[in-house]
């Protein structure tokens, strides 16, 4: 039997957390060191996995399957393909970065914090590789609890409200998703498939358009909230603003990606006809989100809130790519999720760094920081332009592919989405101007110390990756080729099967020629 490499990566952090519980609370340096060590080893093993991954195969790799709860047909089934791989490695990268950011800014209950970070990492990794829906659900829920606690225990003044809002939103979504998973299980039973929660068993289900739409919507709420897709986004600014830096980094960097990933992994292939039918509607929400998020970001007085709303805008673009139903859009969407993780993760780190020094997030409390903290200012500049989508940096590659996909799907959407290019420059540059340029207007900002070696170490790998993806994105795009094409083929063939049913039941919101169904990856009718 070969070594279960995938499970090793997933459960290493959990194992580390268990050991950590045994460590004495007083040995703080040891605790941090141990946690960081575990996370770095996890990252290293995931890089080995990335290297061993065969990009030419569209199928799941490193699969492991074992019976778990036999009576209900629940199995431990995990595997990774080109779609989950980039997000998987992003998670192992951002986790140690987030941890390191908390090194000096988490004054109380450091042990609990470290344990939660490790548990969070395992559950996020598990969610990205689970191929049994019940297993997925367990990881999905397990991921939320550390996040609630993190915001609730180490958050800002308004953390209670933020936590409650986060609970309301995510629980509502999760519950519906659980219902849908159970429904799939029962349908599988009815159609003679036996007891199973396995994704691949569900692929074989014969679902009418009506059924697909209903189940799609049950999943939709959960994922749309997580993305967050307009108008399900209002939990995000509060959660981000109140969360400690490490929480914001993980939230923006990885948790939000669960939404997009969920749509790609589950909604598209399980309910292809519904996904196709809903694509125009979701695209409209995505486009509104792009513009709305950017406009609201522009007027925020709080830097973290500004970045949070910018996420609404950027992830709207990701959604537009995913539902464009073609290769460019899908690959752009996957890459852009990684990009957003790096860029917004770095932005939250940067905001956290000045928050640690000044304990304020208000733009108006800053000004003239360039002269005080030039290294900080330069890092901020690079990350900001990555976020704006300057070619040569990572954001542009994803943005362009998504626009290309969207353009093929529906030109009007692409044109509107492209307007986001202007707005992102407006809100970012204006914020940067007010924080960095000008004379120092607040005495408290005089003599702020520039970045420490630890802080530079945190940012450097992220910035390096921004340049890497911007200049040579093939390293990150090629692994997604085969799996993305395969997925689109899967969606297309099954959407076509279901098409007569759909035609009989409901009128299409858009005429077919408008691009309602174009999952061919470029083969326009």
């Amino acid at each position, binding site marked *: 039997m070969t070594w279960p490499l995938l499970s090793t990566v997933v459960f290493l952090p959990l194992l580390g957390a268990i050991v950590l519980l045994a460590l004495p609370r007083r040995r703080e340096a040891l605790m941090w060191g141990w946690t960081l060590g575990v996370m770095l080893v996890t990252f290293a093993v995931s890089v080995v996995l990335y290297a061993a991954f065969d990009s030419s195969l569209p199928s799941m790799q490193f699969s492991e399957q074992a019976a778990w709860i036999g009576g209900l047909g629940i199995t431990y089934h995990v595997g990774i393909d080109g779609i989950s791989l980039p997000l998987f490695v992003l998670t192992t990268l951002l986790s140690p970065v987030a941890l390191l950011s908390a090194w000096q800014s988490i004054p109380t209950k450091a042990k609990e914090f470290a344990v939660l970070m490790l548990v969070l990492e395992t559950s996020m990794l598990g969610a990205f590789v689970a191929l049994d829906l019940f297993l997925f659900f367990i990881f999905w829920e397990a991921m939320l609890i550390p996040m609630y606690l993190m915001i609730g225990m180490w958050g800002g003044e308004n953390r209670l409200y933020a936590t*409650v809002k986060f609970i309301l939103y995510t629980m509502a979504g999760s519950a519906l998703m659980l219902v849908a998973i159970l429904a799939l299980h029962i349908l599988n039973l009815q159609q003679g498939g036996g007891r199973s929660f396995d994704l691949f068993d569900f692929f074989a289900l014969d679902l009418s358009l009506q059924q697909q739409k209903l189940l799609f919507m049950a999943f939709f709420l959960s994922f749309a909230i997580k993305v967050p897709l307009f108008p399900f986004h209002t939990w995000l600014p509060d959660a981000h603003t109140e969360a400690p830096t490490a929480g914001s980094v993980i939230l923006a960097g990885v948790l939000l990606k669960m939404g997009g990933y969920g749509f790609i992994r589950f909604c598209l292939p399980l309910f292809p006809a519904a996904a196709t039918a809903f694509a125009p509607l979701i695209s409209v929400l995505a486009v509104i989100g792009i513009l709305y998020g950017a406009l609201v970001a522009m007027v925020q007085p709080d830097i973290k809130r500004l970045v949070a709303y910018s996420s609404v805008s950027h992830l709207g673009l990701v959604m537009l790519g995913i539902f464009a139903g073609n290769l*460019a859009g899908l690959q752009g969407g996957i890459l852009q999720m990684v990009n957003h993780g790096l860029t917004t993760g770095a932005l939250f780190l940067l905001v956290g760094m000045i928050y640690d020094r000044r304990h304020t997030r208000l733009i108006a409390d800053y000004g003239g920081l360039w002269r005080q903290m030039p290294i900080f200012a330069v890092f901020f500049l690079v990350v900001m332009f990555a976020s704006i989508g300057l070619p040569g940096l990572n954001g542009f590659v994803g943005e362009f592919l998504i626009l290309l996909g969207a*353009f093929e799907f529906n030109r009007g959407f692409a044109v509107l989405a492209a307007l986001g290019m202007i707005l992102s420059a407006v809100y970012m540059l204006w914020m940067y101007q007010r924080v960095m340029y000008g004379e120092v207007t607040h005495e408290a900002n005089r003599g702020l110390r520039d970045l420490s070696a630890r802080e530079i170490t945190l940012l450097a790998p992220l910035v390096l990756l921004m340049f890497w993806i911007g200049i040579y994105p*093939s390293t990150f795009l090629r692994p997604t*080729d085969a799996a993305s094409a395969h997925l689109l083929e899967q969606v297309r063939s099954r959407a076509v099967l279901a098409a007569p049913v759909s035609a009989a039941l409901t009128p299409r919101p858009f005429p077919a020629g408008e691009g309602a169904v174009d999952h061919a990856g470029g083969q326009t009718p």
Partner: protein
Amino acid sequence: MLDSAWLVPLCPLAGAVLNGLFAHRYRHETVGQIAIAAVGLSFLFSLTATIALATRSEPLHQVTYFTWIASGAYSASVGLLIDGLSCTMMLVVSGVGLLVHIYSTAYMHDDEDQGRYFTYLNLFVGAMLILVMADNYLLMFVGWEGVGLCSYLLIGFWYTRQSASDAGKKAFVVNRVGDVGFVLAVLLLFVTFQSVDFLDVQHQLEGIKSSDAGGNGPAGPTVLTAIALLLFMGAVGKSAQVPLHVWLPDAMEGPTPVSALIHAATMVTAGVYMMARSALLYDLAPIALDVVAVVGVLTALFAASMALVATDIKRVLAYSTVSQLGFMVFALGVGAYAAAIFHLVTHAFFKALLFLGAGSVIHALGGEQDMRRMGGLRQALPTTHWTMATATLAIAGIFPFAGFWSKDEILASAMKADGVGWLGWIAASVAAFMTAFYMFRLLYMTFYGDSRVEPDVAAHVHEAPGAMRAPLMLLALLSALGGVVLGFPPEHGMLHRWLEPVFEAAAHPHAFSSLDILLMVVSLAVAAAGWRLAYRFYVREPHLPEQWQARWQSTYDLLVNTWYVDELYARVLVRPIYRLSNNGLWRVFDIGFIDRIVNGIGRIVRLDGEFLSTLQTGYARTYALTLVVGAIVVFWGLAG
């Protein structure tokens, strides 16, 4: 030699990295030397590449390095295209760039932030070279945005000044408006031609042109017109055409050598270069071409009108740049692609010279930029005076200086073009008249008449050091002789023959005729008239300007307030969008509407009390409630 063309953009980029990371460890002078060496090497490599190209039979050389962005059938690579057009641009960019770098070592000598300055400046040259050497539209966009970034950084170089950081931001944002057009054009090119490679697209366009089908198919005339107009939108932003011209005058907040290099000689001409690169596309989209011509000539007129009354020496030059760019765009619009590039080159010489000269004046006067506090500086600044006078003769179009040849060629091409050509010729001639007037006005107000310099400043007036004078003199030489060397005989000069293979498919060559001689005489007369009027207003009868201002007060106000375009944008766009976002979207919709619903639901399930108990009850109650309701809905739906 041609295969190592990548060294051309890489040298300045390497210089930027060196200075960017380690400038604080070097001595003051070393920073400038590294930057100069980087651009100097780049110029040498450009020169050898040009010679290598000139001595072979193939008129172009394409070299591809690696695939950049690819998905399915779409693929764009990182590769360079070396032909007559790119070589011309490479030489201008690295050549003028080198002179500006040398000049800067003296001009910025006392600035403590030289490391940052030369990092940005090297970065700019690198990005600009990528822009002009890229072999496809997408890679060109890297340079396109790269120079925009450097422009933003350099305009806002003195960032403690609010006006400087405002101007930098404005430049970037306004350019982004145009960039949306550029990106959409690239998308449309991609889906239409399955390629963004210049040669590939050109090849397919040649097929369309020769088959003369043009009717159906993916690349019908509508699509081609759309692509051409969208690309033009990009050029309108970058080359500061109406109505996106507003950023360029404000860009004068940057250090003056920056204005010379970026906002006069090179970056702002990127739009012109890009359209010339797409000449065949425009040739197949005649409607777009007409739009281009109209916008160009309107810009030329409009900007010149503002230059008539401006008193800030740099602003006069900025309006003049906008106006001259209008001339170039107009040339493209009448299908005179080679003439546009010719004017681009001569303009790079004389306008860089004018800005550097203005910098020398400003330097001498300790930062004074208002021409009302200048005058009579001829004796104190002899080199600056004669070099700037040369540039003025060149831009005004006086025989035989450089601008005469290139501007005359544009005017003549307009006259000979079909359609609205002669109307355009009249309008462009009016703009040329204004050009001669405001340029001699600048020269007279600065160097002639009585000194109006503040007494405490006057005591310290001094001619610029050698590092500043040498670039001035070199550029003066080029401004004097550049036109006749590159462009004689008209339409068949050295530059035209060199560019011929590039524009072969799109060109409409004319034979030199007696009409040309006549037009030359007329345009010379127009320029002389402008000069004479300026002489009368500012030397012979210096009371006249005030009289005229009083008589035409409302017109004067309109011009001096730059037609209130900025105010219009603020009132119609900026403020309404801000109010909509702040009051409407955020406070009313986000907080007032969506959140109220969420909070209402929260109240229903009663989430209150201590944090942990909230978590537990909240968790359980929300969960249970949604689960039950959800289950009922879903299963009822599935059953039904």
